[in-house]
């Protein structure tokens, strides 16, 4: 069979998108993964990664800069193998499909910058080399390179390409927020935001106290978090556009932690500790400033709620099985009986925390491990597929320390605060291939949270929308 025939076959065979597990790579790994019911592996089984070429964009100005941002995005998407050295004498006008086919790529992206009334537009075309046709084309407004929205606008083009080919949302036009001690003020923690490609790291709070556990609102315009700036930990909702704040009502002396947005964007779930000892998980309508409801209380700690994508369920952490064995549970979004989700077995121990629900599937990522109390800083990332009938749990990481997993809007990548042999950092792990990318080097970050898809024109993008006029279509 020709290589083209192989590529055609790969394209027409739908990759398994259920939770599947690769056979453990080595005996050592097998031993390491010795948690009953937990396998070492990846969330998606060996999906073929199609090669793509990006022809130099035409039109001058920022064209080459834009093409290079897109090339990096498509590489980071882990959904393309980006061919970075192009064959000599590539066509600049028209497409010679046979030439690109010989070069061995499935896809070719071309682009042209066109200025109209001082506004630049990027016309991109995605060519399907296997079928010798244009798969999709669209026109995107791009602000000038000095504009704060420039890189985000380009990232939106990258996400459109991912969606055209794979039908799934991308994650290039998104950001990650985390908590970190600022230089020169080691007694405090502030919130920082960084782009999905590691660019544009910036500080967003100046509380001069502990600012922790941030969460993006579903429309990407707000960040809710816990700050100690009043002397007690309370939840604030920061409006990223104008810096204004909302608070959650609470009794005096109440401590509030770890907000998680309901997908409606109005309600948040959080956990609190009241003076006098009452504690538990509550919900509050932060848009209306009303409707405080206690979902779960009791003697044990019930903390760190995380809403499922439709808001019908909440994952959370509880130490009801013993103080040294916190576990992950799931309960209905409006309260009710909780079911154990993490791999607990009596007498085995285990420490599991930081649950985060996927925005695209019924999957929960969490951190932890069967750790001896003397072992410090050796947590791994686990993923549990709620729908999978066999209760199997996948362990994604095998080295260093990994905490605070948060799903990307593509439902495929996780951002993790961690440690490797070379130091602290913020890492991005691809749940399909295990590929790990260092997002921010050398920072002791915590409470990482990945935003929804964002738009440079402000706010977030509805999942599925991929930029102006970006309709996948057959232009044969």
């Amino acid at each position, binding site marked *: 069979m020709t290589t083209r025939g192989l590529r055609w076959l790969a394209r027409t065979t739908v990759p398994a998108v259920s939770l599947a597990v690769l056979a453990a790579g080595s005996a050592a790994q097998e031993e390491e993964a010795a948690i009953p019911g937990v396998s070492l592996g990846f969330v998606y089984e060996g999906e073929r990664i199609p090669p793509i070429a990006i022809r130099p964009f035409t039109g001058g100005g920022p064209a080459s800069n834009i093409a290079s941002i897109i090339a990096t995005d498509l590489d980071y998407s882990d959904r393309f193998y980006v061919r970075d050295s192009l064959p000599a004498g590539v066509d600049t006008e028209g497409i010679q499909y046979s030439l690109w086919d010989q070069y061995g790529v499935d896809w070719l992206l071309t682009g042209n910058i066109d200025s109209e009334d001082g506004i630049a537009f990027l016309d991109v075309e995605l060519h399907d080399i296997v079928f010798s046709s244009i798969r999709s084309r669209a026109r995107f407004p791009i602000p000038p390179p000095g504009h704060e929205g420039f890189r985000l606008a380009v990232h939106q083009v990258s996400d459109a390409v991912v969606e055209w080919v794979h039908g799934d949302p991308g994650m290039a036009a998104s950001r990650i927020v985390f908590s970190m001690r600022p230089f020169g003020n080691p*007694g405090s*923690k502030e919130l920082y935001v960084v782009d999905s490609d590691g660019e544009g790291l910036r500080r967003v709070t100046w509380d001069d106290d*502990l600012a*922790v*556990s941030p969460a993006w609102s579903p429309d990407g315009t707000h960040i809710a978090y816990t700050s*100690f700036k009043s*002397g*007690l*930990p309370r939840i604030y909702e920061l409006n990223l556009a104008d810096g204004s704040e909302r608070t959650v009502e609470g009794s005096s*002396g109440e*401590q509030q*932690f*770890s907000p998680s947005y309901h997908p409606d964007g109005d309600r948040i779930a959080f*956990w609190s*500790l009241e*003076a*006098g*000892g009452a*504690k538990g998980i509550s919900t509050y309508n932060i848009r209306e400033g009303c409707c405080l409801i206690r979902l779960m209380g009791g003697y044990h*700690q019930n*903390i*760190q709620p995380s809403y499922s994508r439709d808001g019908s369920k909440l994952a959370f*952490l509880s*130490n009801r099985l013993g*103080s*040294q064995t*916190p576990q992950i549970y799931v309960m209905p979004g409006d309260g009710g009986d909780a079911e154990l989700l993490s791999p607990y077995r009596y007498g085995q121990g285990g*420490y599991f*925390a*930081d649950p985060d629900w996927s925005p695209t599937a019924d999957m929960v990522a969490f*951190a932890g491990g069967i750790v001896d*109390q003397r072992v*410090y*800083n050796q*947590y791994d990332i686990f993923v549990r597929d709620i729908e999978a009938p066999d209760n199997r749990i996948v362990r994604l990481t095998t080295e260093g320390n990994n*905490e*605070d997993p948060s799903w990307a809007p593509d439902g495929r990548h996780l951002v993790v605060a961690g440690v490797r042999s070379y130091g602290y950092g913020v890492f991005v792990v691809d749940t399909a291939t295990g590929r790990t990318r260092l997002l921010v080097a050398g920072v002791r970050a*915590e*409470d990482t949270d990945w935003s929804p898809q964002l738009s440079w024109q402000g706010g977030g993008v509805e999942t599925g929308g991929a930029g102006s006029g970006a309709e996948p279509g057959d232009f044969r």
Partner: protein
Amino acid sequence: MSRSRLILAACATMLIAAGCRPDPPPPDPVPTGPTAEELERMRQDSIRAAEEAARRERERMEQEAAAARERAAAAARRTLMEVVYFDYDEATIRPDTEERLRAKLDILRDTPGVRLRMEGHADERGTSEYNFALGNDRAESVIRFLTGFGLDMGRFSSVSYGEERPVAQGSTEDAWAQNRRVEFVITAGGNDLGR
């Protein structure tokens, strides 16, 4: 030499020379003594001196008492603020912690105006969010111990700093043991101590 003696001496010289009779000695000066006013003044002066001495003595004793109270207050404050420690991932009261809490209990019973804030802390092991819960468990455990002896719940408040405010740096057993603690802050009634 008195004047009379001088006269006698002069006369003696003249007697030898001219046989003169000595003048009668001048009458002794009338002993005038202190007047009534002077006596009264002296009496008043002595009263004042005695009063002054008594006042000084009183002040000295007051100062000593105040210093003693100050020392007692400082000791009470030290006892109240003495940090208590916990085992790994536990909020249960250890024997050494109980001893320190009982010492606080005695002071708190004597000074009902004193209010405390319990600040719970955890070591760096475990996730930061879990450690906020653990730090608060420790603070609440201390409050439960004290209110279990009949102290009013309203005198106590709590805050958890989790693993965010270590007193000892480093990833050693010793540093961890020092960081698993509850600290005490006097939020009201501190002036009642030592009375």
